[in-house]
């Protein structure tokens, strides 16, 4: 299998090189045979990388411990699902996985892109081939998963216990899919620059891809938070770790792009800015990988330091220089077709929204890199941890939350005082009323209070939009409210999907605010002993230690400590937290008897969590006193955590609604366009009109 894998990688290297060269040549010369060759190279590259991926997967599933990668990340006792997840659990495998997924996306882009954008496709093939070439080269020359050992160990080292969690089976692939799929919008942007076809065509071509990337990134980030929460045991979900930040950065710039692209589509403005945002998102996705792999910044996630960091640094420089040059030489083609008419307009509010998104991205990047900057300037290392990021980013985030409510309601071009009154009276009143209630309740945390007030304002804006739309359909079409709601959303998916996303964002913010009221305590309890903890909602929880039991399960010895939890005397549940000692077996027997078990990692901790709508009860078994059943616990009450996951679901659901096929112009509306009574906005790009007519 390793011979096949290596052969496939070498062939992929050649194919990617060919695809890159022939793609640029074909795009430039417009010779059909070259264009066809570039497209076929993309498909062939995909096929050959699938072969390489299958070769590695086969080696993993066959427990071929002579392959260094298989030995380093799996063991015989490792459950099959985690053996498969080991495909991307280590550095070399994840680089191959990256190249493989990118090649699939590249092939899909060639396959599904409508023919009207065919002028861009040779360049798209070239760019995706260049990026694939880079990843295949790094895999071959710096981190080859098919390298063999000089001998064959009887068992592997096993996968890090913290990675043996269902969240880890889907969290990394989702993030990878998000990171990797950004390459496609980037490829289209570069194609538009190369071909000098800088109308809105390339934006329409990448619309779905952008949303796909954004949705995958959103799912990946939320699942990462969930994994950190249930697996790392510190009782939180976001620690501003450099690798968390690395995943957040492209999400911010992509979100900014999803807003600013509307201005280009509607008004023909922000053309340069949109190119920059797409390029920045791609660069940040590579930068995130660079941070993870290079070890330049200390992180709980970092893969071991290796030479791949240099490859990534070089690639980043190459991309920045190339895109910078392309942009510079195409500046004249990127002039805006319209001007901003008022600071009180949707365009202006989107501009400030973009400023804040990019501002937060800069702030996160700045904080992440500040230890290096400090060392360069002063020769002194400093730590930039959660206290810094919270202090700097929370106020900017709250400003952005406020704009989330303003953007959708304010008029395009110029808002009149009447428009402002009509649109904002109810939402502002909702926000003020919430503020008054919080003040009356003597709400204890300023930023949390502001988040809730602004959240109420945004919910007011979204609710108002839904109520007005549904009400109008109900009156005009005599539809019941449910049908009117469904049709309203179905016929304006982009707009109402966006509103649903905004509701998800509000849910996130309010849930984050809840963590300001987290309470926790440590206690050592003998079986039958109890302790109490007061919730921020005013309840008293009592925790009674029931005992510690020990048993073997799959590839681990488990010590499970159990507590009975009561709220105001009523039983909430029994919560179990575990210590797990993972082992490998000295002989090929299953189940492995204790005498043959060899501890493979330090004992890990599994938190016990009871998730309620108001708060999570989070129990961590820290260990036992003097090897007895007297257990040391950490009990934490985390308010509103359930709502973080719910917010993630709402956010992603909104993204899917926005992206769902259809919902565009109907045949009837296109006939109307031809019949001559279509309305057109002043300053709307001409090509959009042409394109709509062309679709008919």
């Amino acid at each position, binding site marked *: 299998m390793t011979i096949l894998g290596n052969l496939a990688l070498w062939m992929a290297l050649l194919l990617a090189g060919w695809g890159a060269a022939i793609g640029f040549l074909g795009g430039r010369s417009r010779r059909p045979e070259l264009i066809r060759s570039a497209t076929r190279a993309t498909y062939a590259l995909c096929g050959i990388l699938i072969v390489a991926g299958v070769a590695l997967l086969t080696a993993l599933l066959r427990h071929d411990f002579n392959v260094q990668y298989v030995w380093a990340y799996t063991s015989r006792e490792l459950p099959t699902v985690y053996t498969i997840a080991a495909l991307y659990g280590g550095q070399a495998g994840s680089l191959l996985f990256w190249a493989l997924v990118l090649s699939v996306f590249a092939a899909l882009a060639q396959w599904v892109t409508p023919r009207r954008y065919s002028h861009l496709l040779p360049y798209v093939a070239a760019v995706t081939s260049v990026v694939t070439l880079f990843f295949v080269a790094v895999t071959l020359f710096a981190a080859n998963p098919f390298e063999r050992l000089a001998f064959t160990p009887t068992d592997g080292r096993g996968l890090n216990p913290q990675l043996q969690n269902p969240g880890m089976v889907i969290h990394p692939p989702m993030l990878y899919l998000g990171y990797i799929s950004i390459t496609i919008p980037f490829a289209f942007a570069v194609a538009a620059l190369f071909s000098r076809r800088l109308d809105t065509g390339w934006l329409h071509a990448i619309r779905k891809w952008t949303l796909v990337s954004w949705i995958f990134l959103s799912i990946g980030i939320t699942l990462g938070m969930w994994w950190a929460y249930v697996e790392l*045991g510190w*009782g939180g979900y976001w620690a501003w770790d450099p690798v968390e930040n690395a995943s957040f950065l492209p999400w911010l710039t992509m979100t900014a792009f999803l807003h600013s692209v509307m201005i280009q589509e509607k008004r023909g403005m922000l053309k340069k800015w949109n190119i920059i945002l797409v390029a920045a998102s791609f660069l940040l996705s590579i930068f995130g990988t660079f941070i993870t792999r290079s070890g330049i910044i*200390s*992180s709980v996630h970092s893969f071991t330091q290796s030479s791949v960091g240099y490859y990534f640094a070089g690639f980043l420089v190459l991309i920045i220089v190339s895109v910078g040059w392309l942009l510079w030489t195409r500046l004249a083609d990127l002039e805006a077709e319209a*001007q*901003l*008419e008022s*600071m009180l307009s949707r365009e*202006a509010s989107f*501009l400030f929204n973009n400023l804040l998104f990019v*501002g937060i991205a*800069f*702030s996160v990047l*700045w*904080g992440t890199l*500040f230890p290096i900057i*400090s060392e360069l300037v*002063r020769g002194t*290392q*400093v*730590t*930039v*941890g*959660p*206290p810094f990021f919270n*202090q700097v980013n929370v106020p*900017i985030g709250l400003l952005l939350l406020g704009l989330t409510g303003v953007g959708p309601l304010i*008029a395009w071009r*110029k808002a009149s005082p009447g428009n402002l009154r*009509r649109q904002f009276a109810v939402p502002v009143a909702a926000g003020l009323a919430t503020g008054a209630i919080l003040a009356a309740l003597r709400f204890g945390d300023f930023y949390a209070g502001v988040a809730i007030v602004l959240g109420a304002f945004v919910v007011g804006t979204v609710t108002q*939009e*839904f109520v007005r*739309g549904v009400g*109008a359909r109900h009156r*005009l079409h005599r539809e019941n409210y449910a049908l009117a709601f469904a049709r309203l959303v179905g*016929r*304006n998916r982009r707009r109402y999907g966006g509103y649903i996303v905004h509701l998800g964002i509000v849910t996130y913010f309010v849930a984050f605010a809840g963590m300001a009221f987290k309470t*926790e305590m*440590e206690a050592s309890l*003998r079986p039958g002993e109890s302790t109490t903890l007061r919730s921020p909602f005013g309840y008293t929880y009592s925790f009674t230690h029931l005992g*510690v039991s*020990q048993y073997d399960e799959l590839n681990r*010895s*488990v*010590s499970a400590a159990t507590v009975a939890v009561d709220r105001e005397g009523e039983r909430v549940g029994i919560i179990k937290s575990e*210590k797990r*000692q993972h082992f490998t077996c000295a002989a090929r027997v299953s189940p492995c008897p204790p005498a043959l078990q060899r501890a493979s990692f330090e*004992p890990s901790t599994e938190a016990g969590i009871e998730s309620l709508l108001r708060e999570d009860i989070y129990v961590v078994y*820290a*260990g*036992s*006193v*003097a*090897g*007895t*059943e*007297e257990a040391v616990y950490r009990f934490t009450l985390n308010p509103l955590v359930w709502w973080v996951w719910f917010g993630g679901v709402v956010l992603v659901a909104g993204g899917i609604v926005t992206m769902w096929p259809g919902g565009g112009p109907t045949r009837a509306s296109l006939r*109307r366009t031809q019949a001559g*009574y279509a309305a057109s906005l*002043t300053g709307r790009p001409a090509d959009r009109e042409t394109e709509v007519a062309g679709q008919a």
Partner: protein
Amino acid sequence: MTPTPTLLTRRRALAAGFAALVPAALRAQGPQDTDGVARLPRPDAAGQPRDRVTDYENDPFIVGVEGKLRCTCGCNLSVYTCRTTDFTCATSPAMHQQVIALVEEGKTAQEILDAFVAQHGETVLMAPIKEGFNIAAYVVPGIAIAAAGSVMSWILVRRMRRSAAESATLDDAGAEDPDLAAEDRVLLEAELERLER
């Protein structure tokens, strides 16, 4: 006064040997009570042995100070988070004991932080001290956003004025709000559908 020497008689030696053997024999039989609490069959599988929790572990002052100190084991976590999360780390419990010792000496929070900085350098703090070059860490993002916002606003206002001057003679109908509210849009769609029929 000199201590009375004890004589090692055969009876005492036998008694001492018996006393030493009994717990070992009991251990060999399986889990037994220790101080009224049952021993675990495999204590090593339950992680490192822990000390009983004292009032210091839950003291808000100590928890607050430890939240500002970074564990030096390389885990990137605060001392408090590390000692209550990473139960394999020996560094954060030691730093916790050091904090307790300083608290018992009557030191203030700042004095404790200063003591750690003197020992480990500035990197032991979870956030940079707000002085000297470090101030840049805190103010640069805000200044950058404010500066970018100001420049953007200035450019936009200038362009708007120029654009307004150029179109002063044009019909100002174009200045009407072209954006339809949800209600109006639905009305418009209904009218168009009616016309279509």
